[in-house]
């Protein structure tokens, strides 16, 4: 089904938010699930985590970072434009229950998918600590939204331009795990793979259960193709139907990073071509 863009907002230099008219998906989606969209007939199918939904209004919010041609094209669409295809909600919802103190960690644009999980964890009665980070102050997104659903929040920047100077994994270790002031029952982390890996290395030391949400390359996202396969605990799993969330201590991050780079050359070729066409004022 196609989906109309109702609102568009730029959240940081390369991060955009779109509110889509998608009543059927808005009604069904749960925290942790994602959609797959296709912009135009020649376009690829790209998976994006659902950042928010309003079942009453029938709207769905997606937040994405421009990383290549498709996301660049997506960022140039305006309110009133339509996506050719939108399918979802895909993947398993986050397992949400009251377990005590939960730390929700979002890195970069990963704050967007961690937001609905944070909200769900809070609603389930957990004590929620949020740690959100980015390279610098200007790239921090959704601070207010996260604050509203958290009992405590730490903002980190790699360059120290805002909040805690360092990585989210360092903040988690230094402020909570090392001090042992508060018993952390679970960590949920979404962000770039190196961030999730670093974070899992830390929580493993302290034996804190850590759930990560993986953003693998996908095609159909219904379990049909296996493009998104990942090794978890020595077994091959499909991120699209078995995930996207897995026990971070079991994930083979090296393989995941390798697999995310399969099409690096083609993606660059496509994006460069797109940018050149844009500069020359032609469509791509």
């Amino acid at each position, binding site marked *: 089904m196609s989906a109309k863009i109702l609102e568009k907002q730029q959240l940081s230099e390369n991060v955009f938010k779109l509110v889509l008219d998608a009543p059927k998906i808005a009604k069904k989606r749960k925290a942790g699930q994602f959609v797959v969209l296709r912009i135009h007939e020649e376009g690829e199918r790209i998976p994006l985590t659902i950042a928010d939904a309003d079942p009453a209004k029938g709207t769905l919010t997606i937040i994405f970072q421009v990383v290549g041609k498709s996301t660049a094209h997506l960022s140039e669409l305006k309110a009133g434009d339509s996506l050719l295809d939108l399918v979802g*909600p895909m993947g398993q919802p986050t397992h949400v229950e009251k377990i005590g103190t939960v730390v929700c960690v979002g890195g970069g644009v990963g704050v967007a998918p961690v937001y609905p999980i944070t909200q769900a964890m809070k609603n389930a009665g957990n004590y929620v600590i949020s740690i959100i980070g980015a390279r610098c102050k200007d790239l921090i997104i959704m601070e207010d939204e996260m604050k509203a659903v958290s009992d405590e929040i730490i903002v980190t920047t790699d360059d120290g331009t805002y909040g805690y100077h360092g990585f989210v994994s360092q903040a988690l270790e230094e402020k909570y795990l090392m001090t042992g002031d508060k018993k952390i029952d679970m960590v949920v982390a979404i962000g770039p793979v190196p961030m999730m890996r670093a974070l899992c290395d830390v929580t493993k030391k302290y034996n804190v259960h850590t759930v990560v949400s993986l953003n693998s390359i996908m095609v159909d996202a219904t379990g049909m193709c296996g493009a998104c396969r990942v090794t978890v605990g020595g077994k091959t799993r499909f991120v699209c139907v078995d995930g996207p969330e897995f026990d971070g201590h079991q994930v083979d991050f090296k393989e995941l990073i390798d697999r995310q780079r399969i099409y690096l050359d083609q993606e660059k070729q496509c994006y460069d071509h797109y940018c050149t066409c844009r500069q020359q004022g032609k469509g791509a």
Partner: protein
Amino acid sequence: MEMKERLKIPRQPMPEQDPQVRKRNFDEVPLGYTPETAKAEALRCIQCKKPECVEGCPVEVDIPGFIALVAEGKFIEAARKIKQTNALPAVCGRVCPQEVQCEVRCVRGKKAEPVAIGRLERFVADYERAAGEVSIPKIENKTGKKIAVVGSGPSGLTVAGDLVQMGHDVTIFEALHAAGGVLVYGIPEFRLPKAIVAAEVDYLKKLGVKIETSNVIGKVATVDELFAEGYDAVFLGTGAGLPSFMNIPGENLNGVYSANEYLTRSNLMKAYRFPEYDTPIVRGKNVAVIGGGNVAMDSARTAMRLGADHVYLVYRRSRQEMPARIEEIHHAEEEGIELHLLTNPIRYLGNDKGWVTGIECLQMELGEPDDSGRRRPVPIKGSEFIKDVDTVVVAIGAGSNPLVQSTTPGLDTNKWNYIVADEETGPTSREGVFAGGDIVTGAATVILAMGAGRKAARAIHKYVMSK
């Protein structure tokens, strides 16, 4: 023409693109009959009183009936005759294994070669479409019954086409963005042009079938929710869409694909036209395809068209046991696909960047027959060898996608998670829910799925009309 003369006409060959040319393009391989060759071929049919060919057809096409019309040059009428029982003649004329269905039973085949039924079916369907004279039968007596069809592959399209002509209100829910199922994601353009699938799907839409693409049943709505929305019956034709892997070391290396992914990228997403289309695909120079079925042939021939220098087809049994159609193996060999029979991969080798660089295989020999009745391949000790490859396509079969089964309480499945349904008429353990095609039988052929759809349509009609 006298019967004696008719018996003298040889089976008319169908011209094909030259192998050396076609191995580098995605255009269709066979070029089709001309009106003259079609008429000549049709005259070979002796119009048996008890035509056995029809019994061999899972959808019971009136074969002598349409062939008689071809012989008279009434091509459009011939197409309409087929469409009385088969909504997808252009597809079936191309991908049905006629050699084991209708043509194998043709009496002409006993002394000479059988009538080329498939080529004639293809010819009249193409003729009708090219003439722009596709007729839409008028549907009388609307029943007011609503039927949901899950999946738009061969079984779903057949069920929908039959039920809409019986006067029911039919909606197909398709998970992908295009209708056709395996016809669009699996079978390559050079075997089944996508414009033909689109035309046959369009024909169903003109009959009144509604098609909701990008709707994953089990996710956006469950079967129970479809009933709650007012559907009187649900047909599940979700196919065998779960790729099988061998679970050997290195299978997750970059450059190792499931056939489903490789073919979906190339066919559905048109990666062979990258960068005009955005979806990329690895264009390997030395490609190994694992398996011996039609999907393996499609993958190997796709790899060749994507520019490979060598394509190795690695199959653990011998040529006699290959499940692929003989015609497909023949086409593949003509195009330079190298068959490595009685060979089984045991692991994939990779570099430090996670890319596949080689495949280690064992030589096999045939032992005692196994459960399938075929002689079991047994490894030859010490026969390990390594072949350098940069791309691998694993085409060893497909299982059942669990999305619908896992969200439909009370729907019985077997140990492979296929839906348990009466293979004759399609009812499942849930009232009002019918199933057919690969999701019931396991991966099979287009026409068997269509046959299941045909039978299920009759059962669904009976069910909703008695409610």
